[in-house]
């Protein structure tokens, strides 16, 4: 049996098909949560924001016009919610520096240390624990962080990133490039 496409499921969700919504959740919940967690750096916030994104999807599925891919449309909702959430909580983050999901306990780390790679800089990267990578990510601008994560996690092209971030393709490339350059600089300096 042919699996319905995301676009077809979205049409069915617009017609209030609960089963279609369940299938959509099965397909995207892990990815949406992971992306939100990577952008926000906090499990509880990632949970809330990704759930909000699915609620928005359910409520506004009828507005999806099919001109872009469903994933581009949905991740635009998610990334915008993440960026909005960060803006709202900016003052709070100044007081409480970004902590990993497990707080200070290294056994509770959300990520594994990077695995081995070739090349001198790559080898240096391999030794970076996520406790260093994560704060470095947190120092990127929201657009840079979203662009880098959409590329690494979702495998989005520059064009798709530009659709999510509502910018030109060149700007999306610059976001990724500057984000990576910034990460490289931050990790080198540590």
């Amino acid at each position: 049996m042919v699996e319905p496409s995301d676009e077809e499921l979205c049409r069915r969700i617009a017609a209030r098909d609960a089963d279609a919504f369940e299938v959509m959740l099965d397909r995207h919940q892990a990815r949406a949560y992971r992306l939100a967690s990577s952008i926000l750096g906090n499990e509880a916030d990632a949970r809330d924001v990704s759930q909000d994104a699915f609620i928005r999807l359910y409520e506004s599925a009828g507005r999806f016009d099919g001109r872009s891919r469903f994933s581009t449309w949905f991740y635009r909702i998610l990334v915008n919610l993440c960026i909005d959430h960060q803006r709202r909580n900016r003052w709070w983050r100044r007081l409480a520096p970004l902590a990993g999901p497990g707080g200070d306990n290294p056994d509770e780390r959300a990520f594994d240390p990077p695995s081995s790679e070739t090349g001198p800089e790559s080898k240096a990267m391999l030794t970076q624990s996520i406790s260093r990578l994560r704060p470095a990510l947190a120092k990127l601008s929201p657009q840079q962080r979203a662009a880098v994560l959409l590329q690494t996690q979702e495998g989005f092209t520059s064009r798709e990133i530009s659709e999510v971030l509502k910018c030109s393709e060149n700007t999306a490339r610059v976001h990724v490039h500057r984000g990576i350059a910034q990460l490289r600089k931050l990790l080198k300096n540590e």
Partner: protein
Amino acid sequence: MAVIHPEPELIPYLRGELNADERAQVRAHLEGCAQCRELAEASSAILSNLARAVDQVREPDWVEYRGELMRKLRAGQARNASIRGRWRWRRADVRLPVFGWPSMAVGAAAIAVLAIALVMHRGAEGLRTPGVDQLELQQELSSADVGLLANYRVVEHLDLLENYDVIERLDELGRPGDRQNHETPS
């Protein structure tokens, strides 16, 4: 001449996103630029490690996650329904239970007619109320009328169309002493 390094294009180049022309340009540049080759390698390594790191995000209990999501969704729907219901209730409150909206139109028309009648009535009253000039004029006319009434018997016998000169001198008819002369003209 300054060399332009195609830095933003390096990652799209490595990912095979560029078109043939762009790809050829970046390839040609990389062949002669050690700095960009190093940058491309470092960027690729960072992206690769980030991807691995992100893949390791600890996942929540999905049953609990879905349960919470559905509760939020239902709560949102109930809230929306409540807001819609409140609006409906307000509309129903405005509606007249027996006559409905047509009776409101009739009522509005009746009010408009009353208002017009009131305005016209006031206008008529305004016409009847004399101004200072009108009062003076009325006073003069009254005096003249009294003079004419004093000679009523003369006036009664006048053929107005034939006695123009008499009409022009009606004031003189009222003078004492002249009355007898005028009583026997015919």
